[in-house]
């Protein structure tokens, strides 16, 4: 499932999905808010490609890419975006609250840094169950200023838990440049305070991400305790749908577009002869078709039944 074509396909699917959602918000077909990950596809896809399929992933508010990379179905995701009964959360969660426990996707959530302790607990559970499953927790540079980040790294280190803390550093916490709000040069350095070796990697290079996570996964699975990876990347769109990106320059955006993770990988595959232009064009057409179908599925899906509300709070 992680051939070069698969990696390319998943990144292309995330991009297509995110851009479609952007468009659907603009035209009023989806309401609420959303945090899109266009530009960060190599992080999601590379990280998940470095895991075993029975490992678990905890996501954050910018989670569509993580979910697709873990194996989430775009149709059920789109249905959730549109608040339909067939959505992963039956229309109750929307963009930032989706999960699929069957595939080990333990949920995206809207509280910055909120998922970190939960991920630590899942890793504790795996360890107590004497499995060799591990957890990967996605979070952003902004979340590393939350107390939960520090509590989680400390707890995971003290208990030597099987968890990879995966920071997608996209340089801005909403509008705040990282260095205006963060006392260290790199998030990875923060691992030092908890005896966790941090590494900084190129988050726009899907192979670099995959290899870093696979290496960390092997160590973590072997009982070495937690790992911290900081992947440098960039979100193309605003923090959320209302953001006009006044806090950054068009030149900076342009520089990052030149290192687009999908184009970089496509170029590498062309060069190595693993994929040619024709194959790439076919994959691009297929993912477009897949997202068309997801939108069609979501659009024609039934609304949720309000009568089910009260019975759905407790197990």
């Amino acid at each position, binding site marked *: 499932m992680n051939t070069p074509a698969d990696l390319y396909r998943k990144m292309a699917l995330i991009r297509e999905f995110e851009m479609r959602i952007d468009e659907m918000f603009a035209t009023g077909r989806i309401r609420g808010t959303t945090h899109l990950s266009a530009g960060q596809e190599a992080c999601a896809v590379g990280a998940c490609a470095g895991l075993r399929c029975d490992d*678990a992933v*905890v996501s954050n508010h910018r989670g569509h890419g993580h979910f697709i990379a873990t194996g989430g179905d775009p149709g059920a995701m789109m249905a959730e975006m549109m608040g339909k009964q067939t*959505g*992963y*959360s*039956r229309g*109750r*969660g929307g963009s930032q*609250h*989706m*999960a*699929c*426990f069957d595939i080990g996707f*333990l*949920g995206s*959530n*809207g*509280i910055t840094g*909120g998922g*970190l*302790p*939960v*991920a*630590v*607990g*899942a*890793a*504790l*559970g*795996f360890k*107590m*169950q004497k499995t060799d499953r591990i*957890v990967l927790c996605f979070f952003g540079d902004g979340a590393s200023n939350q*107390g*939960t980040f520090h*509590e*989680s790294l*400390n*707890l995971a280190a*003290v*208990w030597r838990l099987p968890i990879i803390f995966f920071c997608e550093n996209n340089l801005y916490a909403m509008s705040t440049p990282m260095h205006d709000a963060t006392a260290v040069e790199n998030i990875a350095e923060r691992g030092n305070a908890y005896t966790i070796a941090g590494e900084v990697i190129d988050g726009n290079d899907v192979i670099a991400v995959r290899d870093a996570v696979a290496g960390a996964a092997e160590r973590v699975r072997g009982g070495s305790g937690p790992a911290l990876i900081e992947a440098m990347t960039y979100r193309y769109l605003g923090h959320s749908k209302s953001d006009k990106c006044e806090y950054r320059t068009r030149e900076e955006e342009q520089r990052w577009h030149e290192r687009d993770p999908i184009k970089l990988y496509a170029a590498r595959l062309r060069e190595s002869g693993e994929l040619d232009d024709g194959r790439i064009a076919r994959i691009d057409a297929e993912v477009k078709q897949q997202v068309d179908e997801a939108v069609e599925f979501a659009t024609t899906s039934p609304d949720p039944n309000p009568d089910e509300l009260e019975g*759905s*709070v*407790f*197990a």
Partner: protein
Amino acid sequence: MPEPLTYSEAIREAMAEEMRRDGRVFLMGEDVALYGGAFRVTRGLLDEFGPGRIRNTPISESGIVGAGIGAALVGMRPIVEIMFMDFITLAVDQLVNHASKYRFMYGEQARVPLVVRAPAGGHRGYGPTHSQCLERLFFSMPGIKIAAPSTPADARGLLKAAIRDDNPVLFVESKILYPSLGDRPEEQAFAGKDDDIIPLGRARVAREGEHISVIAYSEMVVQAVRAAEALEAEGISLEVIDLRTLAPLDMARVLESVGKTGRAIVAEEGHRTGGPGAEIACRIVESCFYELDAPVRRVAAMDVPVPVSPLLERRVLPSAFDIASAARHLMNEA
């Protein structure tokens, strides 16, 4: 006949029994292992279950409650001890935005069988940040159950039910009840009986009476019974309803009693404004206004923090005396 357990021992025994019964149950909290927790409730569990299942944690309330949620999501059944209920404020995000919502917001895929135990209440001179009753913070939050026992038997039976429940349960322990043995046979707890689990959501009549229903939970039940005993000589008969759990809230039992007596006092140790007592009083009025012979009265803490000085603390916290005065007023109003 075996010796009855104290409230504190009943809680320990409930945990031990459930841990013997189910390998997925484990405990974590600050100083819960060798030390046995600040109130020594968990003392001795380390010897039987070892450090893997009786886990000392860093002082990280948000981290450990969150870790409880995560472990619960992957099939464990964690119990997290918060040293003083006041410290639960540091874990409010994990309880409010995570534990209580996952079931609903992930389309009923999730189960969060998490118990958070928290010693609450004053009367011990611990002052403003070590004396509070903060169940009010969660009472209005859908998705979290709240148990607050007033007797050793209920402490044991409700905690066992909480541990077996597939939802997050906040288990409110009364600090000053820890040494209590329970006054009547039905209030006493004994180790080893597996069949006396008390289902969450069922109030009990702690004392039958005819003139006024006193609705209370946790230590205020003891105060209410004391008031009832004192008022007997004056010819005022109180019926004391022990809610046992605030969520689910057994309003049917409350309304049945108020329907009979026609008068109600709602008693709680927390501050008067915006607490469970206000909600319960409101529901009584909504449901049986025309059956009431007098206005519903509330007995609660003053709306000031809980002070250290014994004189001041006694003034701020409600007691049997306040319940008795409220009862006399109610009888005069009718």
